[in-house]
Every structure is written in C-alpha cells, then in structure tokens.
C-alpha cells in the first residue's frame, strides 16, 4: 500500500434501527428501539469511548411513506443533539437540517446555540428536501424543482454561515468555539458538487468503487478550486454499511439473515421505485418475466442499478423473492461484509488510495452492529496507527483536522437576490 500520512476520520450514522430495511427485526434487538431515546444516547456514548469524530443524524421533515415496514427518524435532530451534547463531552455532533424548509436566520441561531453549549462540536449537514409530501407540510402544493432547491440551498447556506461569522448587524448566535460550525454536505448531482465545492468542509458520498471515489474526489477538488479553496479544506467520507462477524462464514450468514428480514412489500416498493415500475401487486413466488425491464434508455433511475438487475434476471431467472434476496435490501451505500480484520483492511485500502479521508459508518443493525465495529474494528485501526487512541482538540473542526478559518474564507458571497 502507498504511503499516506495522517489518520482516518470516522462518524457513526445512527440510522435508527440500522441501514437495512429489516434491521429492526434483527434477533435480540428491541424492534421499536429506534423510537427510544436511550438507543441514541447509548450509541453516542459508545462512539465517544471509541474516539470517533462524530455521531451523525439523518432527517427529513415528513413522516416516511414506508413507516409500516421500517422505522423513520423519530426525534427531531436539534433537540436530540442538544441532549446528546449533555451526555457527552468530546465527540462531534452532526445533524441534518433542510435548507428547503428552514429559515436561515432561525436555523443559524438554533444550531449556533447547540454549538456554543457543546463547546464547538456541531456540524450542519445541508440537505435539500425533495418530494411533494414534505412540501405539503409547509403550505406548498408541489415540490420545487431540483435547480430551484439547490439555488435556495446555496442562498440559505451562505446566509447561515454569514450569521455564524457575525457579518450582518447584531449577532444572532454566540461566538463559536470552532470559528463556526462545520458545514457538511452530501449529494453527488452536478448542483450538489457545485454547492459542496463552495461551502462543504465534510462531504458524504455513496461511491461504490474506488474508481468512483477517486473520480468524485477529482470533481470536488476542481469545484472547490473554482471557489479558491484547497483540497485539504475538504474531508471526503464515503458511506459504508458494515456487516461484521468473527468468521467470514458467520459474516456472510449475518448478511443473508439481514436480507431475509427486509419486509417484502418494502423491498418491492423500493425496487419498483428504483426501476420506475409498479410492483405493488406481483406474486413474490412468480418468476420475474424476462421482458419486465425494457431497454436501458427507458430506465428512470440509476442506469448502473438497472443493468445489474437485468443481468441477474437474464442469468438466473429468479422469482421476485429470490431477486429481492439477491439485491439484499441495502440503502445504496457500499456494503462491506467480513471479519473485523477484513473490514479494517477494506477501510485502510480506500483511505490509502485517496478515495476516502474516512467514513460515515452505517452499521447493519443497531446497536450491536456498532458495538462490534467499535469493539473490534476500531482497535485494529488504532494498532495500525490509522485512528486516534485519545481525543486531541476539543472542537469538531479540530477533530477533523480542518484548517482554522482564515478571514477570507469567512466572507461568503451572498446571493444578490437575498
């Protein structure tokens, strides 16, 4: 492996019951644990013991359409992060807040309060919120188009950052111990990369292969350079779903179990959505017709995924149930299955290649999937000198080795329309 100095950055994404559609059914876990405060606090404490950079909370201002089959985000993240701040002292706190349906000044003040109260540990994951159902919770008849969502995201982000930097008039937020909270972003679309290049200090990606990861890094570096930023000002953290057991066979067995646990209607709904086909009424034990999928150019969503499904259907002529099991109910992020040593090897390889500065870890089933990661993978990375054994620095910005903010970078260009 090539030489690379420094260490990995690792967050845990507390994705409610876990990353898979059936994680909540995992044996021995409380099926409603995702609605229990202690579930989140316990994982946060464990993550701090393991010296992780941050806990991460996803969010969206809408009740999930598939609630019948998997738990959603049961706590609003600014309230939950404030509580986690009280229960921890070092770990970073990253929450997702919509740029589409929050007011910039109110959000800057609210997040600035968590940042100050936690001693400078807050990060804001900027997302745009798609979908007519969320829009209808805020008086909108339909969702704004992709371009409009990203234009607003750029304006809101600039305004929030400006509020944190105390540029306009009276400060709405206390001075941040870390200069200002860390701006985090995901979204690999062209607009997303543009927004990330201008503002993001941490970027989540869904890269599936090293090549994709490296290409994404190059795109982000180019976008950032256009805004006068250097690559070392940006930490790229691909999402990775982990399935860990003490032997390779046991890990494969655990993965297969998690695939079996995905509720079939949920899996069919997702598959249909990804392929742009209504699969609501099919018989699970019927063979998938060879002509179910038309030519690639008719594909609605990811063409890569479309080709994958066509390949399986042609080769294996599976039933719907077999196809779903084969696809395994993942959330679109890379899945690493193996022993703690194998998982550590994989993470190290990605980091050394430059495709990742670390990872947003999405354990397969919570809390035990994260316990295994913290207790078994982290010590291996620590022995290899790839992960901290003690916290150094007290703010999230310091944990992420992000450069201190220079004055120039704190002067965002405000959109003229604001």
């Amino acid at each position, binding site marked *: 492996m090539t030489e690379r100095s420094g260490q990995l950055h690792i967050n845990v994404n507390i994705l409610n019951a876990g990353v898979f559609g*059936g994680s*909540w*059914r995992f044996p021995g876990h*409380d*099926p*409603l644990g995702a*609605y229990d*405060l202690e579930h989140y606090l316990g994982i946060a404490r464990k993550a701090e013991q393991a010296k992780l950079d941050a806990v991460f909370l996803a969010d969206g*201002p*809408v*009740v*999930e359409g598939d*609630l*019948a*089959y998997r*738990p*959603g*985000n*049961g*706590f*609003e993240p*600014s*309230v*939950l*992060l*404030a*509580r986690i*701040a*009280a*229960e921890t002292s070092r770990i970073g706190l990253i929450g997702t807040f919509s740029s589409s*349906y*929050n*007011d910039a000044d*109110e959000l800057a*003040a*609210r997040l*600035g*309060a*968590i940042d*100050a*109260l936690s*001693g400078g540990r807050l990060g804001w994951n900027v997302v745009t919120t798609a979908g007519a*159902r969320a829009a*209808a*919770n*805020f*008086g*909108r008849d339909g969702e704004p188009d992709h371009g409009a969502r990203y234009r607003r995201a750029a304006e809101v982000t600039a305004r929030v950052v400006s509020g944190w930097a105390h540029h306009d008039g*009276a*400060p*709405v*937020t*206390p*001075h*941040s*111990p870390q200069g200002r909270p860390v701006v985090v972003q995901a979204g690999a679309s062209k607009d997303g990369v543009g927004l990330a290049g201008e503002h993001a200090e941490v970027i989540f990606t869904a890269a599936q292969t090293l090549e994709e990861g490296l290409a994404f890094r190059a795109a982000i570096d180019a976008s950032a350079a256009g805004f006068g930023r250097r690559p070392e000002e940006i930490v790229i953290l691909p999402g990775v779903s982990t399935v860990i057991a003490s032997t390779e066979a046991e890990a494969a067995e655990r993965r297969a179990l998690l695939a079996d646990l995905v*509720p*079939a*209607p*949920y899996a069919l709904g997702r598959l249909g959505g990804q392929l742009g086909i209504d699969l609501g009424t099919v018989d699970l034990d019927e063979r998938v017709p060879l002509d179910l999928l038309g030519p690639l150019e008719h594909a609605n969503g990811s063409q890569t995924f479309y080709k994958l499904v066509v390949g399986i259907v042609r080769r294996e002529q599976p039933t719907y149930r077999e196809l779903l099991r084969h696809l395994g109910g993942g959330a679109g992020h890379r899945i690493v299955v193996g022993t703690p040593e194998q998982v550590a090897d994989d993470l190290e390889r990605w980091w050394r290649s430059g495709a990742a500065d670390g990872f947003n870890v999405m354990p397969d089933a919570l809390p035990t999937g994260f316990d295994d990661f913290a207790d078994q993978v982290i010590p291996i990375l620590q022995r290899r000198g790839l992960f901290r054994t003690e916290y150094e620095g007290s703010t999230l910005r310091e944990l992420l080795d992000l450069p201190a903010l220079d004055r120039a970078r704190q002067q965002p260009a405000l959109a003229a329309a604001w």
Partner: protein
Amino acid sequence: MTLIVELPAAAVSDAASARAVAESALAAAEAAAEHGAALLLPEAPLDGAAHLDPSVLAGLLSASATGSLVIEADTGRHAPYNLARRIQSLARILPGRLGVLLRAGGLDPVTAATAGPERADADAALVEYATVLRALQRSFPQDALLGDREAGLLADSSKLAPAAHRGESYAVAGALNVPLDPALRAAVLGPDHVDGPFDRRIGRAAGSLRRVLWASDPTAADRAGIVLDAAQRESLPLVATTDDGLLVVGDATALAEAIERHAPDGALLRPLVSAGRLAVVLRELLPLLPRREPLRRAA
C-alpha cells in the same frame, strides 16, 4: 394552583456565557421542581441579540432537570411543522412535563414565502397556529407502533391522523414523524384575551394564570424601566394591576401574599432578577406559596 417562573434573559456572547445560562437555568429548574413549579425558557425578541433557542436549551436541560419546562415560541420565527416536531420530541423525552407558550408574531418566513398576505389580526393567526399544533400533536399516536417482528409490520399507518389543515394562514398536510401517547403531549399555553385551543391561558382574566411582574425593591424596578412615583416608593409593598397583569414590588412574603390573593388559579411569574440569582430567589419564595400542581392539559 399552577406556577410557571420565567428564566430572566441573559446575554449570550460565547460558549462560556451560554453554559453559564444553561447552569443558571438548571439550578432554577431544580429549585422550581422542588415545589412543583415549572420553568419558562423565553424566546428572545425577533430583532434581539444572540440567544439560546428554548427547544435546544430544553433538550440540554432534559438530561438533568426533574421538573417541568415550558418553552416559549414566537409564531413569527417557527413554521408550525418544524416547531411541532421539536415540541413532540421534547415531550417524548420529558413525558407529561413539557409546555409550550405561544407568542403571536405573525407568519414565519418559510410559511410567508408562499402564503397570501399577512393577516391584520395577529390573534386569529395565533389561534390557527395553535389549532395546527394541536392537530399535529395527535397525528402519530404511540399505539400506531406495532414492532411486529414476525409479521414484518413496524407500524399501523392507518392509525396516523394527518393534520390535513388548510386555513387562512397555514396549510399543513402531514402527520408528524415523532410518535407520542396523546396523554403525554405538551400543554399548549396562550394569552387569555384570545379564544383558542389552549390548555391554559395566561394574562389578567379570572381562571387564567395571571402574569406577575416582581421586583424585590424599587431599585430593581428602576433597572427594568418601571416608573414608580414617590408615593408608591414610600408605601411598599406595592401591588398594582397593569395592562400586562400584576406588578408587585416588595419582598418574597409580599409576593406570596399577592399571588395567593390575586392569582388563585396560578401565575406566570417574571422576577426582575438576574438569571444567576433566580434559583436562590425561588428557594426563598416558593416555600411561602401554597402547593403547586403540575402543568394541566385539556382532555
């Protein structure tokens, strides 16, 4: 009687002062809780200086506070769906120990961006806001969660009760994604001159929690900009009815007597002291008052 004590505003310029406010709030919440009183975390004025969002402060305090908390929320700052999610999340964490005091401030910016012209009648908009909030509080009852591992059914979505509100100022479709047993929801408080779906009313009228402004001596009143004439200064304690409620200038005993006589159903007390002094003041005052009862919610 119900007693809610307002945390005095304090400057928050950096992390140290933010933590000092949080520590004062926790000490005051505990002093209040010892006697069954609740602590109100006020919202700063919209054009005010740096402040700590009350829902964030409540989230932090929830780790240690044993009593009831009330957060103030200005309708001009928070879209109802966003506020409702935070209230419901806090109510899950502080079951039966949370209230929200709504303040009429017109439309929030997210709502205003697509709503029609702002209503001239701010109180009518407040009533509509409270109506939406109450509907959202009922929208995801805890018993919709099944957790049926064998059947692969996490929830019975037919038990969701979407707000489906379409009014003059607000259109809010959804159910919240935060489940809660309706019996544990946050109490919704509002001004008594407004006829709205409030659990408790606050102001001057009989049967409501009376607003009580308290200065322990004339100097404290001076600092708060309250003008007392020479006669008033010489005939302390002073108990006067004002546009806002009751003004009491005098010691803790005088205040306790005034509350018992003029606010038999309870009070929202605003002591003119520093946030850091509040816990000490409450430990002197509260033992003098009759037994408090916790926050009440309408059925």
